[in-house]
């Protein structure tokens, strides 16, 4: 268990829970009992409950008090012990009730890069009635998040899980647990919300392939109204940008003149597996790095993976499309 990543406050607890449910039989049993679904409502069929260490210590306390009551023949010490015992029993109902009836639903995912966190949003909804407090959600690999549904009937909890490899990532079963109201008992469940979070390759940043490095001279005019390079001076027409007006010449003559700019881009950048070195994974990583770099520098680029081609463009949505292709390359 030492080599498991012990992240988060519940590291050891969750790592060992993971060990438990890594057991194939348990996993199969769990699959039968709580089958994977995007939306799961918790009932007595899929909620487990057991005393915590605090709960067992509480039991020892009750035992000590009963022993004292016997030896001192003190009725009210019995009374305190029984009140504590009853509190424990009542708490069983409360703890179970805190999870029962909750509906968990996969609300959305946001992609991330390998070795970084992907964001998975879970919508948690309570039925009408009593508020739900102190609910903790999380994957064994991630951090437990607290949720509380008192005034709200529904809330979205964002969870972050370290992504191990590119492609679609299913973090496995989600742990939902609660210690409410006294911390003496733990009610928990492992639900599989059938999460498919997209994981982009881990980027390796490098230089653009030499063959496509562009020069100004070879530039191609793509936007005569751009703002990069000075092009011409002409008479003002309504609609021309005011910042381009040459006010100095207006002071001299009564005529409005405007500077005309144009934008040039460097030649189209094609990202393809042949232009980078390394094995497949490394190539994919390098292309990912180049796509990110090009986007940061606002360069236009296209992707050519042989089987798929994305024509050159710019912007976030283009990048997402490219990254998705890179993430899934060779995995479908």
């Amino acid at each position: 268990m030492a080599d498991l990543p012990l992240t988060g406050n519940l590291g050891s607890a969750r790592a060992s829970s993971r060990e438990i449910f890594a057991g194939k039989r348990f996993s199969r049993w769990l699959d039968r009992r709580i089958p994977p679904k995007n939306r799961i409502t918790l009932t007595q069929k899929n909620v487990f409950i057991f005393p915590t260490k605090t709960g067992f210590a509480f039991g020892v306390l009750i035992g000590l008090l009963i022993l004292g009551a016997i030896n001192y023949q003190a009725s009210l010490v019995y009374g305190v012990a029984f009140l504590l015992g009853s509190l424990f029993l009542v708490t069983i109902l409360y703890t179970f009730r805190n999870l029962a009836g909750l509906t968990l639903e996969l609300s959305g995912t946001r992609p991330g890069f390998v070795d970084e966190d992907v964001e998975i949003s879970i919508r948690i909804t309570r039925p009408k009635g009593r508020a739900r407090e102190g609910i903790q959600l999380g994957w064994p690999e991630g951090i437990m998040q607290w949720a509380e549904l008192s005034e709200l009937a529904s809330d979205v909890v964002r969870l972050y899980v370290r992504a191990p490899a590119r492609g679609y990532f299913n973090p496995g079963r989600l742990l939902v647990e609660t210690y409410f109201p006294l911390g003496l008992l733990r009610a928990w469940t492992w639900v599989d919300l059938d999460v498919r979070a997209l994981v982009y390759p881990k980027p390796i940043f490098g230089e653009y392939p030499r063959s496509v490095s562009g020069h100004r001279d070879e530039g191609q005019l793509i936007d005569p109204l751009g703002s990069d390079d000075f092009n011409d001076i002409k008479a003002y027409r309504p609609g021309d940008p005011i910042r381009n007006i040459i006010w100095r010449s207006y002071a001299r003559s009564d005529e409005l003149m405007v500077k005309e700019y144009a934008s040039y881009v460097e030649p189209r950048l094609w990202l393809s597996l042949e232009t980078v070195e390394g094995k497949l994974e490394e190539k994919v990583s390098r292309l990912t790095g180049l796509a990110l770099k090009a986007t940061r520098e606002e360069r236009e680029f296209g992707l050519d993976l042989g089987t798929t081609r994305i024509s050159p463009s710019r912007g976030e949505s283009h990048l997402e499309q490219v990254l998705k292709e890179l993430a899934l390359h060779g995995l479908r």
Partner: protein
Amino acid sequence: MASAEAVGNPGMTPAAGTAEEASGAIGIAHQIPRNTLALLMMAQVAVIAPYLQQLSVWIIAVGLFCGLWRTNVYLGRWDYPKRWLKAVLVVACLGGVAISGVGAFSLEAMASLLVSMFALKLIEMKSRRDAYVVIFLGYFAIAIQFLFEQQLLLAIYQLVAFTLVTAAMVSLNQLQATARSWPSLKLASLLVLQAVPLTLVMFMLFPRIAPLWTVPLPGSSVTGLSDVVKPGDIANLTQSDELAFRVVVDGQMPPPSHRYWRGLVFSDFEDGGWKARERRRARDYPMPRSTDLRYEVLLEPTMQTWLYALENSTSEHSNVYLTLDGRLESKDPIMSVFRYRAVQHQADRRGGQLSESERIRETSIDPDANPRLQALGKALLAEHGSPMAMTRAILMQIREQPFSYTLSPPLYPGRDSFDGFWFDGRAGFCEHYASAFVYMMRSAGIPARLVGGYLGGEVNQVSGYLMVRQYDAHAWAEFYDPQLGWFRVDPTAAVAPERVEQGLTAALSSSDLASLPLLSSARIGDWDLAGDVLRWMDSIEHRWNLWVVGYDSNVQYRFLSDLLGEVTAARIGVAVLIGGGIGLGLVAVVIFWGRRPANRHPVERAFRRFSNALAGYGYAKEPEESPAAFVRRVAGQVGLTEAQVGPIIAELDTLLYNPGVASGGRELRALRSQLRRLQFRLAFGAAR
């Protein structure tokens, strides 16, 4: 280790974590929420306060000091105490307990340690695990307080303290941001309230068994008779109006002059005082008859084994036996209110022969002490012939000579103190008269002994039971007559007959009365309203003792016999199941069904059916979506036009927010059929 951790609470995992844990949202799991601290500090004050009666002031001072320190840490003014300071405090507390004079293994020492631990833990409490330790110590301290006293008022107070401690525990498990103190307190009160029925079931049915081993007892704080009596001891008891015991009599309450509650028989004269040592069991038990007087005593804790009963009484209580000198004795010290039934045998005078060793013991005196009294005793016997006649002569002397009955007699020092009283001072309290009488009888060779106990008691007019208080303590004498057996003589009756007939206050002079405690009910007995209130309160306290504090194995057996017909394991098991089922069932009903939405609006119901049906086709309504927005969205997805769904949406909106829609009305039926048609169209659209 691994599996144990798996079921562990975040609060119970070790606090020492990585830097990552110390910051951000993760920290929630380890840090103690601020309002938990506030609740814990309140709870601590509440739990320690009743200990003011039992513990030395310095322990309370340590508690206050720690509370002050912690409050300042809480407010961000001070830092946590340094390690050396904590060590100094711990050593100081241990040392303080050791040198404070209470026995190392006494209950007081235990309680002192518990309370100081409870206080000290507060200033070093950082993690949630520490908070749980403090909470558990709090529960423990609440219970230990009941070893000292178990009055109803204290019990009510402790229930409040219990709720405070529980509230601190609740707040540990609520989200920090929203956990204000009030919701925690509310929930804790609810939890405690809901636990009460189950507690009662357990309290009634849990088998009460005999102590497993002997335990340290509370120290000298209990007032009451002691098994060593010197002149002046009993007069001191009259300064206390504490309750000694209550008696419930079946049938007629005996008149005051018959209420001699025997507790101790002082057969041994040593060092100018009397000692009661006899603990041996009597050999034969008389059988009770139907004419005998039956009564039940609820004895307040004495930390002693002797019990109080009328003369010639026996008890069938399994823990009570009859001694050779005709007293009732408990097998274990009385640490909590003790209930025992007894029978006073009317016929049996308990005569029988005195053995030679008994005769020697009951006539032994110090031959050198009180020579004048010895001479008087011998002379009186020679003059009157029989012990009975001699007794009458002694009582006549008391009556005729200027003897006086007083709470504050002069001190009669030295070995010949009885002589000093009888011949010089002639002012004394009951034990003076009884001692002098016994001494004279013994000097004449007649077996006689001093008896200590209580005389009289006040009948509570509210409930008809008898309250016997410490100031009813009394001493009288018995002498042995071969025909009559042991015969009671109360020389006090000769000097102050009012004491026997009407109680202490009637017999005392006004200066003696003034020395009694101010608020004793003896003094305000004539102030009616206050007297009534006191009697009412005592009546309630009596019920409390009868059913709660005095509920032991014997009472339990009788109660269960009445309840179940016969006490068998199977029947108790069934009672546990039924009682527990009802107790938990009530709670389950409250928390699972108690807050179901009541009587939903009929249109809302109709719409809910509709939206549930659509959810089956994959169109789930978002929680924040209004009904209109939901229909519009689904219609749009399926391809229906606004013209097609507009009227239905308008109708839905109108009816939904109209509180006056009748559940069987025409409008509602129309809407329902419209919704059904829409559902079909949407479903058809979905299939396409």
